[in-house]
């Protein structure tokens, strides 16, 4: 199993040095290879498991239960301006 460690790291927004990537590559391949054994199991005629708990989803009533807690919720944010989160520039 060949893994593009740099790509996986980029998708996960994890910065890796070349050394780290070289070290992690075989480890990830090992893990995937281990799990890969599952693909040998014959699953014909077996219903896929959607969720480990065999429970139907509970639903929420369409009623507003949350008020404005902006100050509390933004307390841990590094930077706020006029109630807006400030992040490094993102542009299409």
């Amino acid at each position, binding site marked *: 199993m060949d893994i593009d460690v740099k*790509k996986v790291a980029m*998708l996960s927004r994890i910065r890796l040095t070349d050394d780290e990537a070289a070290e992690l590559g075989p480890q990830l391949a090992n893990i995937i290879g281990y799990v890969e054994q599952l693909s040998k199991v014959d699953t014909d005629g077996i219903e896929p498991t*959607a*969720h480990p708990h065999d429970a*139907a989803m509970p639903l929420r009533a*369409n*009623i507003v239960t*949350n008020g404005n807690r902006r100050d509390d919720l*933004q307390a841990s944010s590094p930077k706020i301006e006029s109630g807006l989160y400030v*992040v490094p520039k993102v542009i299409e």
Partner: protein
Amino acid sequence: MSWETVIGLEVHCQVNTDTKAFCGCSTVFGAEPNTQTCPVCLGMPGQLPVLNTVAVDKTILTGLAINAHINLESKFDRKNYFYPDLPKGYQITQFTVPIVEGGYIDIPTKDGGEKRLGVTRIHMEEDAGKSMHEGLDAVSHIDLNRSGVPLMEIVSEPDMRSADEAIAYLKQLHQLIRFLGVSGGDMEKGQFRCDANVSVRRPGEPFGTRTEMKNMNSFRFIKQAIEFEVVRQIEIIEDGGEVIQESRLWDSVKSESRSMRSKEEAHDYRYFPEPDLPPLRVSQQEVDAIKAGMPELPGELRKRFETEYGLSSYDADVLSQTREISVWYESLVAAHPADPKRCANWLANELLGRLKEAGKDLADSPVSAKRLAGLLDRVGDNTINGKSAKDILDDMMESDDDADAIIEAKGLKQVSDTGAIDTIILEVMAANPDQVAGYRGGKDKLMGFFVGQVMKASRGKANPGMVNQRLAELLKG
């Protein structure tokens, strides 16, 4: 040899619930930034989503209205990508088993027939927040009020063969979702947004490579973007090149599209089952109950208005635009059954026009169906003429008086008495001897001048039909 265009559409439509898809935050548009958020829609650790029951019901209703199959068990998945307006780092969506599959929308064709366009699926998902870049230098601003608002993504088959067909499909769908009351459909507020997959091929050949035009929210721009893209692709192929599969963004200012390659690199969503949500199960009984509550749909209504009330296809179309208008129209007809066409004219042209000018919806109309019917009764029995009726409607928009009271107070009763009309005509003729001579000398067009003068002299109250008739008689000399 000619080219054939192939178009498939993905519509993101906001479901109009009071609360978000997975938490109890309000969805009201236009609130102060970040005042409608909570730990769930902010993606804080340890928070669990609980799905809004009304979002489920409305998505099912939409599926039923396009004759689709409802999956009694559907599943949720995570679509992973990093963007600051997506605080969890993933969007909860339905990837493997959507709640709605199949279905179709019929669009009118130029030859008066219909073309059936397939719908692949409708799945439920949540919206992201809003990023703002304009006027900012090195930063972007994020408002997460929209984060977690419920969406339906309606995915079509690649069945459209022209930009016009694509627009016709979108308009039908847009009308339908508003009719069903499942979405406000306000395109300016982003409640109805469209991605268009476009490719070209020689007729009969397999599909060409497609590009995806992202996130358009105006019918005009969508049409322009598709037409631009078709020309661009044909030029590439005819010049010996190959179309690259990519996402493109329509620039409505420059009227051109550009590649979004940056986004392309990150296009690896690594979907996996949402572990926080067990399967969504609905019973056939619940689906049947939703079906039983489904209103008459626009297409059926339009046809019924044409046959039952003898309306023109244009009027029938206008009056079936929204459920609200159709219900209003039928209560007007109930109150003024003598002339359904007159009801249609006065609602579609006069009342809706005045409401639009005043920036009001039909729901806020100061004139009720009953009060408008009272006015139409007086038009019908010739108590007033059309011109006076329009003035009276203007008054009714500003007061609570009914038509009869205004007619009485302003003395607007139409003059249909031959003697009175003749008196006015003779006065007008006496005051304009040159025109009388001109008319008698063959200038037929002067008739309009005389009608105008007589109506003016009667302060608009003369019966126009009688004025015309008596003028023709008296001018003969």
